[in-house]
């Protein structure tokens, strides 16, 4: 059965990576997807599962905010099951260290799962899901769609999506789900895997097609999973590097943002406007801007988000300082604009972008309070210094990802800063964090296929252009070399040039300028060559 096979892959993948095999198995058996494995798994560290565990939020006196399920509580202490940086564990907190305790009042996830009969069917049927229960992780924007179970489109939906998983490569275990098509009737989730090179493999034209595909399904949630390569024009960059030229990809991010269901989407553009969620694993360089457009952001435990620093050095050596500052300012503001579109603090973007920007933070009742200066009290944390003189990051710090000249977010810092709503290793985790854990349905869309096809088309287009350029160089006037032969050669050159023109025009947004030269420049050169051929033809004469 398809379901079991994929779940097994999931479990194996987790074990193979040494990533919390026990918990992975618990999640699986909770869904009833893999009884055999569940039975052979050591007892899950969950007790009292008959009753839904109480979820609380602790505001500690040191400013930290902790959310978890209550395992036990005495007059002196409280023991919680918590998830920190995606890793589940148990922590005990002295009540004397707690400033405030609030009820999270959320539908629970793991505990009921262990209680369910271990069958091939979803552990929780749609009817069991607490549809009306408040979802603490969900944004309260007022324009979110009803996420109650939807029916219909059955042939298009699948709990486990082979085709999608196949395109996710070594990340496919992330999207496995315990839902079964015939029974799952919960919120519909459309996943977009943004992999490869941002601006090349993920660009406006294929994303427009992906969005058309999304609209067909009217999903309740659109999840953009960011796992792009930190690559610019085919040149791989290290995670500790900054690519200030990323800011020239802001328009790509802005264009894609205009397609997705953001706050800006005009009324009527989406029959049912879905929740837009960013789930970040790797969004470095130009890709770093796009996750911010979603009001809900989540990170994987191994996430990296940034790599857009040194903006203020982007144009070093070009022109005058004031004019350069103008260029930095408008780029920075556009980046910050995308941040504000998602409702996030723009200072985070600024700290990512400028080395000379100093940002500190402290946490009051778990909420960040920002200071655009060096810390002045022990409870303040320095996020980025001015990177000058003794503050400049040293090589070793940089290599270890410990630099603080510019901000690169990982899962725990994104969570602390309130940017991330939770850390999720796989799709089930993510749905848990979003309060949609029990009966969601992963839509079998064409998104991955569309992006992969586009990437292939770009590869092919580049090869084709290279071949056409070679052919163009090889055009010769054939014997007898008379007027007709010369005219034929010109005709050949025109044909080749027009073919190149068509390819550059169609794929200019994604072609590698370092490999081929900029598309616009190429188009201009082609026009000039065509005009020159016309002039040559006009000047040529038949032999007498």
């Amino acid at each position, binding site marked *: 059965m398809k379901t079991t096979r994929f779940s097994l892959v999931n479990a194996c993948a987790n074990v193979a990576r040494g990533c919390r095999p026990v918990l992975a198995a618990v999640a699986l058996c909770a869904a009833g997807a893999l009884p055999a494995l569940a039975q052979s798994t050591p007892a899950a560290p969950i007790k009292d599962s008959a009753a839904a565990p109480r979820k609380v939020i602790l505001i500690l006196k040191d400013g930290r905010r902790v959310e978890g399920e209550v395992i036990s509580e005495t007059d002196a202490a409280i023991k919680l099951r918590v998830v920190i940086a995606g890793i589940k564990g148990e922590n005990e907190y002295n009540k004397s260290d707690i400033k405030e305790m609030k009820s999270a009042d959320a539908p629970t996830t793991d505990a009921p799962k262990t209680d369910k009969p271990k069958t091939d069917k979803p552990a929780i049927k749609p009817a069991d899901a607490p549809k009306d229960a408040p979802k603490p992780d969900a944004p309260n924007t007022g324009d979110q769609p009803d996420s109650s179970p939807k029916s219909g489109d059955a042939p298009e939906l699948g709990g486990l999506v082979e085709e999608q998983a196949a395109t996710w490569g070594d990340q496919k275990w992330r999207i496995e789900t315990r839902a079964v098509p015939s029974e799952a009737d919960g919120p519909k989730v459309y996943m977009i895997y943004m992999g490869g090179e941002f601006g090349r493999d993920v660009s406006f034209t294929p994303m427009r097609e992906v969005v058309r595909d999304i609209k067909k399904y009217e999903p309740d949630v659109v999840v953009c999973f960011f796992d792009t390569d930190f690559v610019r024009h085919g040149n791989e960059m290290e995670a500790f590097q900054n690519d200030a030229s990323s800011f020239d990809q802001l328009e790509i991010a802005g264009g894609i943002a*205009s397609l997705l269901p953001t*706050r800006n989407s005009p009324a009527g553009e989406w029959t049912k406007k879905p929740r837009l969620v960013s789930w970040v694993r790797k969004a470095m360089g130009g890709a770093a801007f796009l996750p911010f457009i979603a009001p809900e952001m989540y990170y994987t435990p191994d996430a990296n988000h940034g790599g857009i620093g040194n903006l203020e050095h982007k144009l070093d050596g070009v022109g005058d300082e004031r*004019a350069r500052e103008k260029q930095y*300012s408008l780029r920075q503001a556009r980046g910050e604009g995308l941040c504000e579109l998602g409702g996030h603090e723009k200072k985070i973007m600024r700290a990512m972008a400028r080395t000379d920007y100093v940002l500190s933070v402290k946490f009051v009742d778990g909420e960040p309070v920002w200071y655009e200066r060096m810390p002045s009290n022990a409870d303040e944390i320095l996020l980025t210094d001015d990177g000058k003189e003794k503050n400049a990051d040293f090589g070793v710090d940089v290599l270890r990802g410990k630099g603080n000249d510019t901000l690169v977010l990982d899962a725990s810092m994104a969570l602390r800063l309130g940017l991330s709503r939770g850390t999720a290793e796989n799709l089930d985790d993510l749905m848990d964090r979003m309060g949609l854990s029990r009966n969601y349905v992963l839509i079998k869309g064409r998104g991955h296929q569309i992006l992969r096809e586009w990437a292939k088309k770009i590869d092919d287009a580049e090869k084709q252009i290279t071949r056409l350029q070679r052919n163009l160089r090889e055009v010769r006037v054939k014997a007898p070399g008379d007027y007709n032969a010369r005219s034929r050669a010109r005709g050949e050159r025109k044909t080749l040039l027009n073919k190149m023109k068509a390819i550059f025009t169609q794929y200019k947004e994604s072609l590698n300028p370092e490999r081929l030269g900029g598309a616009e420049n190429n188009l201009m050169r082609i*026009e000039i060559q065509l005009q020159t051929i016309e*002039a040559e033809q006009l000047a040529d004469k038949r032999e007498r």
Partner: protein
Amino acid sequence: MPMPRLPRRFFRSLTAAIVLAGALFAAPDFALADKLHLKDGRVIDCTVVRETDAFVQVKLSVGGIETVKIFQKSEVTSVVKDTPASPAAPESPKTDPRPDAKPDPAAAGQPAGDKPALAADKPAATGDKGNNRAEKIAERAKRLDGGASRVAILNFGAPLSWHDEIADTVGIQVNAAAWKEAVKLLDKDNVDTVVVRINSGGGLLLELSRFNSLFENVYKKKYRTVAWIESAISAAAMAPYVLEEFYFMPHGSLGACTGFSGALKNVEGVGLQMVLLQMEEASALGRRSPAIMRSMQIQAALSATIDPDTGEVTWFQDKSGEYQLNPPDQIFTFTANDAVKFKFARAIAANKEELVAAMGLKEVVWAGVEATRFIDENMRATDRTEKRWQIEFREFQLYFGLAGQTQDPTDRGKFVGKALAALREMKRMFATNANFGLMNNIDDEWFENNERELKKLLRKDK
């Protein structure tokens, strides 16, 4: 390395355009009682608006149209004033034009009556003369239409949703001539409220005064005119700056108004002073502190204080305010949240429904469709023309060169014919928008010279 689209667009502010630029704010009535004696012998009847060591700004009538012009002092022999106090354009804030000057923080916080430029920062002042007029217009139209406001949205630059279909250069695709024409269509449909929806990365400084004048003297008088900012950078921020009501899209940004030419060479000297002055006046007409725009144009600190009781915002051209908006070494650009927080904009509106709600309009009829279409089509047509211009220009250069090189009279005739055809096509385009010429330093004289040269080449063989 090829220039990516974003920066290339910002290379288009030309010094030549700045030198040509002059404010065009017309006052309702003024007497041309002063006389400006120029070194070329001309004596100009005018009203002197401002006189500095570097230039004289005067108001004069050109073909019956009230115009403000700036003459460099080097052009002027003498200034003879009829009266010591001519009725002038709105008083500009007295800001030291030196980039490194430390302005008087107190001046930036003067009451509205003393400093009109600061009035818009104060909530109480926003509903005064300008808005009353607009509200009256809106009221009148509502009566005609059973109470509903007739709102037109005109695109000042292609919205993001056009996805780079065309370029968005102020002065080329976005031109004041088209916006002037659109007025007839707006009136035809009884439009009472115009939304200027801005998404442009800037353009020619030359076009600023045309837009400033058009918005101030026509749009603001006829309609409640508001700006709705998606991206208003450089000239796209400056051109509509006289409008008093700004709204931002959630990702909107406005600023980065530094003038430059070529490979990021600053506009300096008189050119800089003129454009600073021009924007001081635009700030006054838009009822904003001049400190804001100044920080967008040159590296100048900007801070503000919000009165906790009244919400009144006081601006400072230094770091003395409570909130630091721009460090002294950077150029300022507003984003949406700050624009609203500091009362530069009235609200954030993601879509047109949110916009009209934020504008306080209860009932709306979307009107002026023809005007909207006209502006959009004009942008597309101008974009096509701009591309065509470059092709014709290359064609002209190619055949002009060949005509000069060939020894064969028949060939020369063919080449001259081709060059002339390209030249005439360019001339036709130039007649529709002379700003095309700025891209290649082409003006009327250039056309005359090249036509003459081509004719000379033809005569060579006779």
